């Protein structure tokens, strides 16, 4: 293949990654934006989404498309419920103290990860994509499902944006993010908003995982990379800024894909982690975030 | 007793054109200020006049947008807060800020420790303890030396702040609303304490309590909306029309 088409292929691969990353990172960003906490277990919610998707799909053996659809609905709901429980039992008791929350979510990370290891096992298991044909482009054939992932992610992001800006619930979330005390004064049930946001963030991670699991496989350690990448995206894009998150996801997802194809993925990751550190030191508001008080 | 013999500059503190903006708001506006050594000066003004911002600029807690701060003849505008403390400027917080988990004595020991540490070698613990106890005795907290600072009453915490200030043996002691929350009895004791401290240090005092101001201050500076509205002896200020209007109208 010539360079041009090769680059296009790399870009499409990058776009798939960026799409899933945008959805996943959005969950992390919302949680930080509204609750001002960092959820280190976010990657494990992602992994849970994939594992549960496998489980649902393997239960419903009829047709991969039905199994996938069921997984798309059931998996985020289960993960969301679990996140809500964790939030009620652990995070509320800590009063959302930022440092204590990070320690607690690290604990949750290990509990979830190892629980999956004990039940699901150490193997990677594939999930059938709902449809399995290739779209024939002039230079190469490309998986239609991957294109679907990109489209689905875009729809999802638009949906979240619409929900945040046009609905009452979205308004309550944004109000709580802006000023918790004033929101309380306006009779916004801040505690319920917090619980809802945390669950929703986890659901987004799970959704991203369900979308990507037919492309990858479900494995108990698969939460690690999405967590790291989500971190990178959210910090560079600006903690609490949705626009920044999406933009950063696109940039990082695309460049990660492209760099990994052309150069060493390890080097790409080293650079990415160092960039995150330096952004935090010298431009803590990232690309679009507000200056911290 | 008399201050340590050094080049006692007649002017201990001076500012020229000191200004600070916060976005669109100008909290301190082109202030020229002079404080002679050994004086007790009070800064008064309505809420939002910029008093705390002004002393924060003096102590180095915030940077000026423009202007200069000179202390003991040297330009300290570029120095960070902790460097100014080392030069001899001490600040007690408007909202009590002490080390709650440590004993009252340890709080004051920390104040003295910094001053007496040369390079990496600190002073012997016994010496620090003695100094701390002395400072605590002066403010009347001697019996509470061992108590955790967080367990002290509010009034006693205020006094602890002053003791810490003393532990620093500063040349300029800035007190930010020190009598707020104190009972009348405590306030009376406080006035005596400050008079005593003023024999060794220059004192700059932000106060709302006029009784304290009139009783203590040798001169008064009135700030309003970031500018110096008036400056002079207590009787002059009391009689000044502009000041009356600022307080009554503001």
């Amino acid at each position, binding site marked *: 293949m010539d360079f041009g088409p090769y680059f296009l292929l790399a870009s499409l691969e990058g776009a798939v990654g960026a799409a899933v990353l945008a959805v996943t990172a959005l969950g992390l960003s919302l949680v930080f934006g509204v609750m001002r906490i*960092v959820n280190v277990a976010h990657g494990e919610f992602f992994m849970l989404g994939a594992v549960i998707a496998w489980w649902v799909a393997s239960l419903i053996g009829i047709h991969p498309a039905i199994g996938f659809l069921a997984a798309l609905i059931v998996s985020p709901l289960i993960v969301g419920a679990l996140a809500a429980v964790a939030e009620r039992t*652990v995070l509320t*008791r*800590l009063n959302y103290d*930022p*440092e*204590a929350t*990070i*320690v*607690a979510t*690290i*604990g*949750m*990370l*290990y*509990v*979830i*990860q*190892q*629980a999956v*290891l*004990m039940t699901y096992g*150490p193997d990677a298991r594939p999930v059938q994509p709902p449809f399995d044909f290739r779209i024939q482009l002039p230079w190469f054939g490309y998986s239609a499902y991957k294109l679907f992932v990109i489209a689905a992610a875009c729809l999802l992001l638009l949906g979240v944006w619409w929900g945040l800006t046009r609905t009452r619930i979205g308004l309550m979330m944004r109000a709580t993010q802006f000023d918790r005390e004033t929101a309380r004064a306006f009779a916004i049930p801040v505690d319920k908003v917090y619980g809802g946001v945390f669950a929703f963030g986890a659901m987004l991670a799970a959704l991203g995982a369900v979308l990507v699991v037919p492309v990858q496989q479900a494995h108990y350690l698969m939460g690690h990379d999405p967590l*790291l990448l989500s971190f990178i995206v959210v*910090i560079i894009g600006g903690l609490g800024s949705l626009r920044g998150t999406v933009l950063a996801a696109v940039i990082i997802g695309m460049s990660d894909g492209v760099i990994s194809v052309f150069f060493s993925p*390890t080097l790409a*990751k*080293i650079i990415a*982690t*160092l960039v*995150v*550190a*330096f952004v*935090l*030191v010298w431009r*803590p508001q990232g690309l679009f975030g507000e200056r911290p008080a | 007793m008399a201050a340590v013999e050094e080049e006692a500059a007649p002017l201990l503190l001076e500012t020229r054109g000191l200004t600070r903006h916060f976005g669109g708001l100008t909290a301190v506006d082109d202030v020229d200020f002079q404080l002679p050594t050994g004086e007790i000066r009070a800064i008064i003004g309505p809420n939002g006049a910029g008093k705390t911002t002004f002393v924060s600029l003096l*102590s180095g*807690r915030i940077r000026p947008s423009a202007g200069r701060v000179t202390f003991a003849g040297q330009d300290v505008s570029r120095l*960070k807060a*902790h*460097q100014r*403390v*080392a030069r001899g400027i*001490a*600040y007690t*917080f408007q909202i009590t*800020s002490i*080390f*709650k988990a*440590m004993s009252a004595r*340890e709080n004051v020991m*920390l*104040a003295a*420790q*910094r001053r007496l*540490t040369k390079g990496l070698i*600190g002073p*012997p*613990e016994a010496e620090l303890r003695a100094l701390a106890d002395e400072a605590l005795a002066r403010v009347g907290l001697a019996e509470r030396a061992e108590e955790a600072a967080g367990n002290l009453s509010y009034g006693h915490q205020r006094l602890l702040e002053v003791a810490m200030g003393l532990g*620093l043996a500063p040349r300029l002691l800035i007190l930010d609303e020190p009598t707020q929350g104190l009972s009348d009895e405590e306030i009376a004791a406080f006035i005596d304490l400050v008079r005593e401290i003023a024999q060794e240090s220059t004192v700059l005092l932000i106060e709302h309590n006029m009784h304290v101001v009139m009783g203590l201050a040798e001169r008064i500076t009135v700030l309003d909306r970031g500018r110096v509205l008036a400056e002079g002896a207590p009787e002059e200020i009391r009689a000044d029309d502009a000041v009356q209007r600022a307080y009554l109208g503001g």
Partner: protein
Amino acid sequence: MREIFRPDGGTALHLGVLIVLFALQFALSDYHHINIARIMVLACFAMGYNIAFGYTGLLSLGHAMFFGAGLYGAGLAAQFAAVSGPGAFVIGLAAAVALTVLAGAVALRTAGVSFMIVTLMFAQAAYLTIYYFGEFTRGDEGFVYPDAMRTLFGLELIEPTVRYTVAFGLFAICLIASFAVARSGLGRIFVAVRENEDRARMLGYDVYRMKLLALTISGAMAGAAGAAYGLLFGYVGASFANIEYSIYPLLWVLMGGAGVVLGPLLGTLAMFYLVDVTSGFTTAYLLVVGAALIALILFFPKGVLGTVREKLGARGARWLP
């Protein structure tokens, strides 16, 4: 100096612990013999972390890079430059201190959550660098120490008694150093920075420099532990520089008691055997780590000895600095 090591309950207690630990080697079975040696070295890592986190309040999530720097500094020197025991140790220690100062100088410009993330990112970058230079470091697989290099002034470190005694020696040094810091004016400053940074600044302390000092001492102990670990137990691998080894010292310190000199030892001991027992019946022993973290932060943020010290009041402060 006289003041710090004054003959009181605290000094006696810590001396007693040292004596017991030294004597223990003559009573232990082979299995526990090597375990305790391991625990003592890891406890040095934890004591280092305690200086930064327990006393100064710096919650770092990147200490694995300091441990790893010591481990790989010594290991690579032994492997490629045929530097034996003492020399390798010094090189490892120096590498760790250099990395601490460099990373610390940058990371300490942030605080709180940002500091946690920055240290995490630095450690992650360090971990990935080990893979990037895989041809030397052998990445995950790691490499075994050349036997000839595992000597200390003529003594074979592979020998159980020598190994235990050297581990004990390092432990004793770190314990005494921690004790000295905790009881000195320096320790008081660290605690002040943790309790009320603003106030410390307004008492004239250069808070940034104090934090960097705390971190440097912390990184030195972590690096010493890393260098010693390779020399004593013969293996250098990337897993020791992974995120888990940044979480472990946090866990050990939290469990034993943050800001208590003996806390890290207790925490390391307890978690080591807890994990040991758990891995007896499942590969998912990290679950215990996770559950312990959650339980500790929720119900016992002061840890075992921290809670004990609190209950004992003034006497507690004397016995458990």
